């Protein structure tokens, strides 16, 4: 109490940084661990000598080379990329149209759509994969990565639509009316007014759709069995364990490499990501 207000404030900041440290250690340690393991030679990984928290012998790129050249990693990467991009496009088309209709064009039942969308969360992948298994089998798409194109949107569309509804409803109706007076059709209003103004929301939604698709594990694991069709997540998991032998070095390097695109996208577009996520909570 005897400290001046300025010094009290500085002390608060210092204590805050100190309190932050355990959290940062907790959050970043696994990544660090994965990283150094991916560079440790096999002999060091399996030995119990030395301090495992640092790289004791010379770091090696052997694991990375292995996964890139001796497994179908590149194919999985390509598969994952293909699927993620296409699903993102599909998602955005459906979500934009749906969100626009719901937020602007009042029609019978529009109010219930918000609830309806929300209720799709009650049917998570852990539930849906079983009926999907049958359906996908019947369609003959079992073992083909393209079956994911139908399945992933069930995860991405509800959330993206919800985000976009938030951004679209925030656009003042006066802008609609001005466009109307200027003679725009509904489609023109969407493309010339709404999309540009809601661009941050579009970026956030695209990012979500892409990262969710990229990270999916359950559906690929359940439906894709042939090596060429696998995506990164289930590819790494199923291939890098032969019987009882775990190729930890390769596993870690594979996992890290597979995470890189998503984390980089996030690093650049972090503000949109966060804004899209938290927008609803302010209401």
């Amino acid at each position: 109490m005897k400290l001046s207000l300025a010094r009290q404030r500085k002390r608060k900041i210092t204590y805050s940084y100190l309190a932050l440290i355990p959290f940062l250690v907790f959050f970043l340690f696994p990544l660090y661990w994965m990283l150094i393991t991916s560079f440790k030679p096999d002999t060091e990984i399996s030995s119990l000598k030395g301090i495992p928290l640092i790289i004791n012998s010379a770091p090696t790129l052997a694991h990375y080379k292995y996964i890139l050249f001796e497994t179908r990693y590149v194919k999985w990467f390509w598969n994952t990329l293909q699927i993620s991009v296409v699903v993102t496009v599909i998602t955005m088309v459906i979500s934009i149209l749906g969100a626009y209709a719901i937020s602007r064009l009042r029609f019978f039942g529009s109010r219930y759509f918000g609830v309806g969308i929300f209720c799709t969360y009650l049917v998570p992948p852990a539930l849906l994969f079983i009926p999907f298994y049958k359906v996908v089998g019947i369609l003959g798409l079992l073992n083909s990565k393209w079956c994911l194109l139908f399945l992933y949107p069930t995860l991405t569309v509800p959330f993206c639509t919800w985000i976009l509804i938030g951004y679209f409803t925030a656009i003042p109706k006066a802008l609609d009316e001005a466009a109307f007076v200027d003679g725009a059709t509904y489609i023109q209003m969407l493309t010339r007014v709404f999309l540009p103004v809601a661009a941050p929301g579009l970026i956030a939604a695209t990012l979500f759709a892409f990262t969710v698709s990229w990270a999916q594990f359950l559906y690929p694991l359940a439906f894709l069995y042939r090596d060429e069709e696998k995506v990164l997540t289930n590819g790494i998991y199923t291939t890098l364990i032969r019987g009882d032998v775990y190729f930890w070095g390769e596993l870690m390097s594979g996992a890290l490499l597979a995470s890189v695109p998503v984390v980089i996208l996030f690093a650049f577009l972090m503000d949109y990501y966060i804004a899209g996520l938290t927008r609803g909570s302010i209401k």
Partner: protein
Amino acid sequence: MAKVTLSNVCKNFGKVEAVAGFDLEVEDKEFLVLLGPSGCGKSTTLRMIAGLEELTDGSIYIGDKLVNDLPPRDRRIAMVFQDYALYPHMTVYQNMAFGLKLRKHPKAEIDQRVKEAAEILGIQNLLERKPRELSGGQRQRVAVGRSIVRKPAVFLFDEPLSNLDAKLRGQMRVELSKLHDQLNTTIIYVTHDQVEAMTMGTKIVIMKDGFIQQVGPPMEIYEYPVNKFVGGFIGSPGMNFLPARIVAENSKTYVETKSFRLLIPENKVSYIQNHGNLEVILGIRPEHIQDSAFADASSITDTFKAMVEVVETLGAEVQLDVASGEYNLTARVDPRTRAQRNQEIELAVNMEKIHIFDTEPPNQRVVTEKR
């Protein structure tokens, strides 16, 4: 009830000087208004008195106590915020009782004080409601009530009326003035609205860019503004300003603009001549420009002609926008005037009420009377 003394109070935000060395004495039981445009430092000063902002330099005394390092709750102040800052999840009663509850006052006392304050403000029947169920005016009263309950030494108000519509503002001005009389306590009030300052304050402090421009009772500031800024800030519609020069001719002295000249009354001549510089800025308030057909014969006037551009009928008076040469002036004339658009009119200026300002910033006013 206490006086507040600010001594060389300064506040810098990084390199920006928000408040420059500031001395001010607020007398006990005064209604002091800090008035000025946005960014002049008035809110910052108020917050420093409250303890929400830290002083870069100087000292503040409430009563005889140095409060620089005291947190707000030890300063015996209460504050009404611009957005009322009512706790949304508490009822009106709980909002008002909160401060006392924290200080562990006995329940009976809290109850009595809250009911008392509620009665003064006429909100007794709102006590069980939540803020979101109240109108703007009602919320404002609750905010004031919350302050009254604490029985502080000084009341601080931070632009409390700016979120209300014009009519409500008018009503609240009257109520706040009455409140001041009723509570008989020291109030420091921040606003950018000169009407509020003039109608409620016992003393006004006009600020600009962190500096005090003038301190004084409302009429003094109105009649004897210390510079062009103050002259133009107080009074609505604002004072007319025209560049002019002082001209002497045939043992008479005139103030001459590009399009007309006015005869300066005898009692002002020596002051103006002593000023030295012949280039000046002439200031005339619209209410001192009359339609010469209805001019007040008792005051010393001189006339000039101008072209009427806009006639605004306000009911009790008529506001004329006139052009004289390249200058536009506003005049508030008798409603009986026959002025019409695009017609010439002869206007009479009350020469006892004109102001002469220096052309160099800060455009100080040339004192033209003995006070």
